[in-house]
């Protein structure tokens, strides 16, 4: 499989602070790749840098063979990368359906929108029930669904999900991951940042582990699940 996304030695600085020191990874087309690491390891910064909402200070980001480092976020999403960001960042004053339609902004072919809406509603039937409700009035799980659904509306080649299980009830997390599996089966490429190792490794094909802003371990998800180093690094256990 050819790499859809390739990152080499990514560094992100916030003034004097270093957000990410040295991250390299690859996401092959059609794969689900997990980005593991504890809180503060640099997962969110990495995704935000790929999506263009924080700027890259060093390193290369290429997508589908072309460099996208340094492009503004609105240009990157038009290339086919969509991010469901940390904290969802929904447009709380607008309806569920408006949020989804906003997600479809990058589409050149507007006639595809009804079909895409149907697809999202079939993946997340709850959203269909609430389509006219204001996004700000929904529960945490529903907001997460909406954030993912909104990202899907641009028909991305690469869907990036930032901590989709964070703060959600276990039952909802299960449904969420079921839908990711379904998307995977449809051939959707996914880059998944997740704190919960078990969940991520179950869903992913391949995984990277981040520690203090660096990729320190990588391997096929099945092998990583058995790797004692993962547990050690990840949980800070000796």
């Amino acid at each position, binding site marked *: 499989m050819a790499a859809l996304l390739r990152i080499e030695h990514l560094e992100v600085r916030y003034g004097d602070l270093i957000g990410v020191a040295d991250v390299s990874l690859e996401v092959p087309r059609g794969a689900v790749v997990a980005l593991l690491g504890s809180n503060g390891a640099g997962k969110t910064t990495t995704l935000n840098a790929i*999506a*263009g*909402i924080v700027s890259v200070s060093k390193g290369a980001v290429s997508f589908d063979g072309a460099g996208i480092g340094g492009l*503004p*976020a*609105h240009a990157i*999403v*038009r290339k086919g990368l*969509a*991010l469901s*960001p940390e904290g969802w*960042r*929904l*447009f*709380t*004053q*607008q309806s569920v359906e*408006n949020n989804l*339609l*906003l*997600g479809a*902004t*990058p589409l050149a072919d507007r006639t595809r929108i009804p079909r895409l809406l149907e697809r999202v509603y079939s993946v997340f039937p709850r959203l269909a029930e609430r389509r006219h409700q204001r996004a700000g009035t929904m529960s945490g799980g529903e907001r997460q669904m909406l954030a993912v659904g*909104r990202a899907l509306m*641009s028909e991305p080649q690469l869907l990036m999900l930032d901590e989709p299980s964070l703060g959600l009830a276990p039952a909802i997390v299960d449904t969420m991951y079921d839908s990711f599996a379904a998307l995977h089966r449809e051939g959707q490429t996914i880059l998944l940042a997740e704190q919960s190792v078990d969940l991520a490794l179950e869903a992913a094909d391949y995984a990277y582990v981040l520690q203090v802003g660096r990729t320190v371990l990588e391997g096929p998800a099945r092998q990583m699940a058995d790797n004692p180093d993962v547990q050690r690094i990840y949980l800070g256990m000796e």
Partner: protein
Amino acid sequence: MSMTLVQVVVSGLLLGAIYALFSSGLTLIWGMMNVVNFAHGDFVMLGMYTAVVVWTALGGGPWASVPIAAIAIASLGIASYFLLVRHIMRGPMLAQILGTFGLALFLRYSAFNVFGANFRTLPDTLVGHSFVLGGIRFEGARVLAGAVGLIVTLALHFMLTRTAIGSRMLAVSEDATAAQLMGIRPQRMQALAWGLAGAATGIAGALIATFFYTSPTVGETLAIVAFVTVSFGGFGSVLGALVAGLIIGVVESVSAFEIGPVYKDVVVYVLFVLVLWFRPQGLMGKT
């Protein structure tokens, strides 16, 4: 209610629709970007002068002056956005006051320099005639301005709440970064907001010029009314500005008639502070 009082209320409603008309541009950018444009009154003033010039020097009537003023002030709004507002938005709220107040003085006295200190009025034309309907007198120019006020504010409201472009503008106003993730260019939307606000303001100026006087300092008077109308109605709520405008218009008219014109502002300001006391976000503002 005596017939005169009915007349007073009707006059107040018309006045209120006109207040809403020249406040809608202010509330749009206020809500979109959390920027208070202290030069708003001077945008109205320039709209009025555009109308005066088109009407008198170039011989156009309202049908020419209104669209031309809309385009002129829309361009001014977009230019102000790119040259000034875009940069001061990153600074503290005070930078907005500083920048737009400086812009206000600059525009006011540039107009002074070009047009002189004198008051100008438009000649009475078709729209200047009044008519009687059910015992109530209506003045053509005010009815036109009031009607357009209603249409423009409702159209802006409709555009923001019912169209894709409006939805994108609201998205930018709520979370510009998230909007970028949707492929929206925040600066374009913000420039568009300034353009639309400018167009509405230009239309307002051109229509007000048909029954009001035009002078370089006229914007000062109108700006305070607009500020009160907008915060009364709630930032960003075009519909709120409309409702607030109508309330203020009627309250002003009735209190000027019943208590005395000097106290009409007192009544309005007291009402305004009371509204903020009970509803700190204004009548229709979002919390």
